[in-house]
């Protein structure tokens, strides 16, 4: 049984070792980019099926962000939506034979959590200003400053380990079962992987929204986006 915690190096690009997750991520990026470009090339006021699905997705992301933050979702739409979409697609690559999900390796999860971490700080500063954002660490009193600082680290670490553990354990369990009985038996576990992957993508996106929203502060601005206009 292979060690699930190590990464395989496929080839070297100069001094840079290109590992499996990076290669899979590139493939996913190319696929997503092509999909986005092709599907948004001809948008119409009267939508087709694909456009309806896309609009439903965007509207749902907007609604979730608005519900969580109570503010206009436009500045956060791309980040949250991309995180959800990438994690979902990456998790679901587990069903492809011979492909390991990038999220089953801690580097990818750490990269995602780091982006969320940086985005939290950036949105907090842009939303409250330097002093305002730093003042949030002293709430409810200055005694809480160390605890708040530690919380920033631990919740990011928890984000990493949650996604990594779930996906990696799914892949690992499927690998173990596959080594015992190769036919039909892994199918329910793979189905469970799909469900877990979707739920984990949702949880990751929601937690990122909560973190960013808490940092950006409560400035209730815009009205709730209507969903009637886009529902098919």
């Amino acid at each position: 049984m292979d060690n699930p915690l190590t990464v395989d190096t496929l080839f070297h690009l100069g001094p840079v070792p290109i590992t499996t997750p990076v290669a899979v991520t590139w493939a996913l990026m190319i696929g997503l980019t092509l999909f986005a470009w092709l599907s948004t090339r001809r948008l119409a006021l009267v939508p087709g099926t694909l456009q309806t699905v896309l609009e439903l997705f965007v509207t749902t992301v907007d609604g979730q962000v608005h519900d969580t933050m109570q503010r206009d979702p436009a500045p956060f739409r791309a980040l949250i939506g991309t995180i959800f979409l990438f994690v979902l697609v990456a998790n679901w690559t587990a069903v492809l034979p011979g492909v390991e999900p990038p999220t089953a390796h801690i580097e990818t999860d750490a990269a995602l959590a780091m982006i969320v971490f940086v985005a939290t700080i950036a949105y907090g500063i842009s939303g409250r200003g330097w002093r305002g954002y730093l003042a949030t660490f002293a709430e409810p009193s200055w005694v809480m400053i160390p605890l708040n600082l530690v919380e920033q680290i631990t919740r990011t670490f928890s984000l990493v380990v949650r996604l990594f553990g779930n996906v990696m354990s799914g892949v690992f369990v499927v690998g173990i079962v596959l080594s015992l009985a190769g036919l039909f038996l892994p199918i329910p576990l793979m189905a469970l992987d799909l469900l877990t992957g979707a739920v984990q993508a949702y949880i990751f996106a929601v937690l990122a929204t909560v973190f960013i929203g808490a940092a950006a502060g409560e400035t209730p601005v815009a009205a709730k986006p209507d969903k009637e206009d886009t529902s098919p």
Partner: protein
Amino acid sequence: MTIDWWTLGLQTVNLVVLVWILARFLFRPVSQIIAERRAAAHAALDDADAARRMAESARDEARAEAEKTAALRAQILAAAREEATGEKDRLLNEARAAAELLRAEGASELERMRRAQQRALSREAGELAADIAGKLLDRIPDSARISGFIEGLAEAVAALPEASRRDLGAGGTVRLRAARDLTGTERTLLEQSLKDALGHAPELHIETDPGLIAGLEIVGPHAIVRNHLRADLDRIREEMADNG
């Protein structure tokens, strides 16, 4: 546990690039088209609202027009009804007047017929009375038919105006009508009496007329002096007819 830092760095760059790509190619166009559709829907709603308002105003106008028409119609109807009422009243009045006229004519005709009948009755009664008086006079002496009236005739002649008296008998004979032929004594008495009354003796031309029943009558050129029952009966009958 080993972390491949190259992989971590590459993945971070990859994800940032992916965020940019998807923001550029997926989220921006889709949210734009959603906003466009929302604007279009709002515009369509506004258009529909304007159209509805226009339709409402048109409906209000039509309603006002219909009300005006109804009012005009009611006015015309009321005028026609009034006219008809007036016409009816007029016709009624005319008919009533015609009926009244007819009734009055009938009443006057009736009155006229009644008067004629009464007059006829009176005449008949007078004739009857004359007959009765004639028959009754037959019972008394024949001399009473003349002699009793000579005195009265003389008085009546005396009562005439002076001019009439002078004329009477001045121009020749005087017609004297008697109920029967006068006897000699009666004639003498009569001439004597007339002579006393007139102051001169007229020449008498005596005629006999049984229609006088009893009495005498002098017919002058300008005056007639009646003193006989026929005249009395005629007077009574006239008075009765006048009173009736």
